[in-house]
């Protein structure tokens, strides 16, 4: 019982620390607000006219995809933070304290959920300003928002693992973007997979990212859902289970570089 209380208090204490850091380094905010907004504007006004999305306005097609993408990348702060903690020796200090060890990870990830909420508000506001409209009822929209936060949470664990594995904060950034970025593009997020070449289309269609984006489209726009919503939830839990276990394992053996 006592250990459960410690787990909760250690997590919140460390989440507060992560959030303070974002306030102290406001340039980090650029990464997870201005950047996705730039993407929205670029896609809507530059590429949008050239992309056919039968049955949907491009801006409606785009917003669920681009919001999922920004949720996925919101976790990069966790990778960066953990890689820095390792480099600066803070992980050694934490590991020598009688605290609940995984709080170093869960604290950061809880902070990520907070930043994801901010990000979501910014993205939806910008989306509505450029013409995005929900086509479903409140329950679906709420479910869609909850799924977005779950996606953000799941990918925070991926970034936690990256941060603990990369050899430096810079490398963790590079890993995150060079591996995950193409994955988000070879999906239904920005263009319908039917327009891709034959060899690439199956990749896009089986990409879990496509499942997540299609699930959000179903919840926000009422497109046929198929199994996408449950598929997306299942993918999230699978990612949390695998990367949660991997990250805790890495943390326990983490040695300051």
């Amino acid at each position, binding site marked *: 019982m006592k250990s459960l209380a*410690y787990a909760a*208090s*250690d997590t919140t*204490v*460390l989440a507060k*620390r992560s959030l*303070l*850091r974002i306030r*102290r*380094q406001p340039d980090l905010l650029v990464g997870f607000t201005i950047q996705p907004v730039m993407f929205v504007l670029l896609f809507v006004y530059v590429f949008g006219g050239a992309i056919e999305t039968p049955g949907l306005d491009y801006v409606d097609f785009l917003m669920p995809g681009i919001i999922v993408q920004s949720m996925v990348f919101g976790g990069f702060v966790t990778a960066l933070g953990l890689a820095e903690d390792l480099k*600066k*020796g*803070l992980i*050694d*200090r*934490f*590991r*020598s*304290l*009688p*605290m609940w060890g995984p*709080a170093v990870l869960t604290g950061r990830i809880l902070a990520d959920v907070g930043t994801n909420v901010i990000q979501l508000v910014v993205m939806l506001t910008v989306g509505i300003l450029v013409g995005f409209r929900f086509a479903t009822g409140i329950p679906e929209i709420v479910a869609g928002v909850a799924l977005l936060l779950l996606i953000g949470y799941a990918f925070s664990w991926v970034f936690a693992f990256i941060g603990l594995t990369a050899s430096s904060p810079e490398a963790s950034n590079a890993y995150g973007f060079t591996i995950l970025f193409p994955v988000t593009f070879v999906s239904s997020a920005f263009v319908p997979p039917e327009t891709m070449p034959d060899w690439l289309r199956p990749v896009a269609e089986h990409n879990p990212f496509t499942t997540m984006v299609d699930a959000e489209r179903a919840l926000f726009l009422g497109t046929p859902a198929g199994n996408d919503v449950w598929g997306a939830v299942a993918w999230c839990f699978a990612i949390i289970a695998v990367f949660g276990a991997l990250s805790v394992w890495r943390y326990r053996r983490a*040695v*300051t*570089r």
Partner: protein
Amino acid sequence: MAGGDVAIEARSLRKSYGDVHALRGVDLDVPSGTVFGLLGPNGAGKTTAVRILTTLIEPDDGSARVAGFDVVGEPAQLRERIGLAGQYAAVDENLSGFENLELVGRLYHLGRQPSRARARELLHDFGLEDAAERLVRTYSGGMRRRLDLAAALVARPPILFLDEPTTGLDLRSRIALWEAIEALVGQGTTVLLTTQYLDEADRLADRIAVIDHGMVIAEGSPEELKGQVGGERLEIRLADGGSRDLAIGALRPISEDEPACENGLLRVPLLTMRGAIADAVRRLDEAGVGIDDIAVRRPTLDDVFLKLTGHAAEPEAEEEPEEAARR
């Protein structure tokens, strides 16, 4: 803990990284309330030993108990009784000094108010009050070190591990830190500190283990170790053209052993310290040998080191090939 208890006890600790043998069977015994110095050059295995004793890594072989708890089997209880200031200051750059200490207090589960009170107290003790609200990224190296040491003391741990606490500090900060450590020891804290500085071990430690290539090559009080290299000696630099042989002849009566001469520097092991300089100057004068400089030199742990390892405890002199290839 009552006096006479063993605070830290290690038995044949071994640890390898690939084919680098960081520790090759290390035994340590540190009685409660004493200061133990782990002295060794770069790559000797000091940090590895501290990491094992503070539960950060597990030994490949051997065992250790700290405050009576096994480092592998009972890490949680052990961590409640130790404080660690690692080799590199482990402080959060994006928090203020106060927030750093408060964070550590909260993670020791002291509670919010006690954590804050303790943070204020430590900032005062370490002369960081004026910088308390400033972000640590604006701190100087010495200020970070002090904050790091303060962080290790937040929970008033009975056993303190300090890995090269004064490396990179100027003389004034070093002395201030020594005084802080001495004050803690006065209150009964057990300290294990590693250092490359012989004067530091000499000043602070009750007992010293000299470690090199992962093995303890000598152990004892600073006095015992110095005893191994003999007593005081006179060092005399002869003036140009001063005759070596004449000088040696003149000084033989006050020398315990045959005086040695190397590169114009004459070393005379003294029978007695009393009046030695005046006596030597008079004798050399009578023999007509001019001198540039004369001084009594007490043996330092440098001499111990040189004698035990065949190389000086120069940090840079001991760069090992595997050390260079490590990253």
